[in-house]
């Protein structure tokens, strides 16, 4: 990088595609009376997720550290608890250390919440919206709605709920994938197989919704105590790329606090910053209506529409150019 290239990384045509998609999304929610909101990017609490790291700064010489939000989730949930009803927002979010073909440390997230919905009903709305955004750009096959278990069984013939770490390792080895530095954390091996084997095997030009995740990957989703127990969480994939993540939202403040504490213990073991827990979110949760919520990567949606395979090609400028 010489630094003397002042040209945008996105073409004008791609910026126009981005503008059209944003307009379409606004029209979609306006027609359904979903309220557009804005919540702060700077907050004193940040995400506790062991695999998501926040950028940190201060807002004055004497202030406590503040964190650039990695998702508007906590603040939007406080709005829901205060009686906002259905809400959506376009938010700039920030994630430390995430840079690659599909990653940029600053990106645009579309997040919305639907009181009274569960994850299945929300998946249908996501499907409707994404189809409306992409219809003039690519031809989509009929969407797939598969449980996490079925997606694994159909694409690689492995049951993620019965395979132990040794079984997962053996599968990875059998696929000829050499791995360095991964310990015996069960979820890490699941995520390795998900990204390396399952995602590339999903049907092409198809919105593939995968729901009911392993309980250990519940994040902020409700648990359903089946055998085995599952998290009422879903993700949307298209052409091997993760496009959305949604939850039937956990409303139990005690359980949420426990999950935060488990996260923080894990962060401590990993030698990562122990984040302050968002007490205001925990205080608001009991008043939050039963709801489902989802986050969509807007930049990636534009990538699909524009037919490009690098996030740089849909961003006006990138941080490391």
């Amino acid at each position, binding site marked *: 990088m010489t630094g003397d290239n002042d040209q945008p990384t996105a073409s004008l045509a791609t910026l126009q595609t981005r503008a059209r998609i944003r307009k379409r999304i606004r029209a979609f929610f306006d027609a359904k009376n979903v309220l557009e909101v804005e919540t702060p990017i700077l907050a004193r609490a940040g995400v506790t997720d062991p*695999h998501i790291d926040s950028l940190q700064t201060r807002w004055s010489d004497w202030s406590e550290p503040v964190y650039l939000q990695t998702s508007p989730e906590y603040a939007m949930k406080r709005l829901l608890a205060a009686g906002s009803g259905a809400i959506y927002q376009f938010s700039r979010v920030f994630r430390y250390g*995430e840079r*690659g073909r599909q990653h940029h440390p600053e990106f645009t997230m579309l997040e919305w919440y639907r009181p009274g919905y569960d994850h299945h009903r929300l998946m249908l709305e996501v499907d409707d919206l994404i189809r409306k955004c992409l219809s003039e750009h690519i031809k989509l096959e009929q969407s797939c709605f598969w449980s996490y278990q079925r997606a694994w069984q159909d694409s690689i013939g492995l049951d993620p709920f019965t395979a132990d770490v040794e079984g997962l390792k053996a599968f990875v080895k059998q696929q000829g994938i050499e791995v360095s*530095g991964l310990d015996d954390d069960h979820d890490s091996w699941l995520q390795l197989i998900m990204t390396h084997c399952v995602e590339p095997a999903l049907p092409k030009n198809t919105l593939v919704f995968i729901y009911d995740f392993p309980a250990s990957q519940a994040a902020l989703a409700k648990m359903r105590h089946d055998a085995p127990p599952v998290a009422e969480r879903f*993700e949307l994939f298209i052409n091997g790329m*993760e496009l959305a993540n949604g939850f039937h939202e956990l409303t139990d403040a005690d359980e949420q606090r426990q999950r935060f504490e488990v996260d923080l213990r894990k962060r401590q073991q990993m030698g990562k910053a122990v984040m302050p827990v968002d007490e205001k979110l925990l205080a608001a949760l009991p008043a939050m209506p039963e709801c489902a919520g989802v986050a969509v990567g807007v930049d990636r949606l534009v990538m699909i529409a524009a037919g490009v395979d690098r996030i740089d090609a849909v961003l006006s400028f990138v941080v490391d150019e």
Partner: protein
Amino acid sequence: MASYSTSEFKSGLKIMLDGDPCSIVENEFVKPGKGQAFNRVKIRNLKTGRVLEKTFKSGESVEAADVMDTEMQYLYNDGEAWYFMEPTTFEQLGADEKALGENLKWLKEQDMWVVTLWNNVPIAATPPNHVVLTVAETDPGVRGDTSGGGGKPATCDTGAVVRVPLFINEGEAIKVDTRTGEYVGRVKD
């Protein structure tokens, strides 16, 4: 000892892997929105030339390899090693048969090669894209055969065997592409 974190990975970076110096060919950052991040890397082993794929857990560190590509001129062979000279310092370094490998058949005195040094020892040597060789041995062209089909094999002064057109005779100089091993043209004095 110098090391690199996976966040510094990019193509061309030289790292140590299982005791061998390697060069990163391709690096891809892979991360589920919520979940463990990985770096999927294609790596060339600089001693064997083999390319392999490896997935690192993001955040890992790997040892740096002290590897340098240097343009050097081939001088002579003393029966054990092939000696190359760095043209500005006149430093001479001997490369063994393993470092030259298959490329040995393109080696001609005074040609400029790219020699890969690991801890200042040649571990690989890459010929220029084109070399001019002299035909040492080939069958006389068959007159009247204009089918133009396959040409004929010619053994060059370096030992390389190249398919040449039928009109090429012993003693002539030919230009060869070392990447494909194919005849490019006749070189007239």
